[in-house]
């Protein structure tokens, strides 16, 4: 049976500022401008799996199981949190959508059955998104 790609989307809201703790305050303000000030986003995350539908159920994955993984790995970690202060991922790098997407890809890839995650799309806002396709942190 051929592979099928399926996508589940969720939305979460966080506060953040683009800030690299390894850089000086002046360097952060120079690099990030207004984004160095505290602000927030409604992120939209699209999680795409690719696999062969089960012959009995006709499903690549039970969407409830996928939602459980997304809730546990993404929503609890990030929704209504501050990315800089409430999560351990941005002590050495700023919470840009590139870096946040890499964290999300890594935790989802570890939690999902091996080989099932095709890629993610993370919208920081309606006009900005990052795609990660293929094995995490490859780029």
């Amino acid at each position, binding site marked *: 049976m051929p592979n099928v790609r399926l996508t589940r989307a969720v939305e979460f809201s966080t506060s953040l500022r683009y800030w*690299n703790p390894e850089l000086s305050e002046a360097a952060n303000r120079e690099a990030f401008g207004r984004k160095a000030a505290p602000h927030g986003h409604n992120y939209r995350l699209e999680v795409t799996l690719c696999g062969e539908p089960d012959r009995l159920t006709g499903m690549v994955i039970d969407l409830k199981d996928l939602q459980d993984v997304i809730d546990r790995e993404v929503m609890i970690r990030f929704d209504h949190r501050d990315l800089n202060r409430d999560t351990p991922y941005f002590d050495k790098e700023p919470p*840009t959508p590139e870096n946040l997407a890499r964290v999300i890809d890594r935790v989802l890839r570890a939690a999902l059955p091996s080989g099932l995650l095709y890629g993610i799309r993370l919208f920081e806002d309606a006009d900005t*998104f990052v795609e990660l396709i293929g094995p995490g942190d490859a780029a």
Partner: protein
Amino acid sequence: MIALTRRYRFPAAHVLRHPGLSDADNARIYGKCANPAGHGHDYGLEITVTGEVDPASGQIVPRDRLDALVAERVLDRFGHSLLNEDPAFAERVPTAENIALATFAELAPAIAAVRPGARLVRVRLEETRKNSFETGEAR
């Protein structure tokens, strides 16, 4: 592969009319889009860039540099203009296909010059909410 996409908009006018064809042939090929007085669209433009994430900035390309390049080379040039009068369309009818190709050709070298390894991989042009056109690598 990690890629960043930014969305932009520009309003532009065009006439779908090949100067080498008769009025009758233009009307037959392009229908109402051949109206010699012109018509226009609010074009939606998605620019997708891949490359390494810079460890200090956490970004594939600085957002303000990318925005400035797209503004200078595409939005300010094509926006609020009659596309048929632009040199990019001296030899080609400004169909959405050709606008997408011209945008890719215009931006690819400029984006490659922003950072080593930065590369334009996709241009997606929405002419209306019903019609969109992509050039470059598929997702």
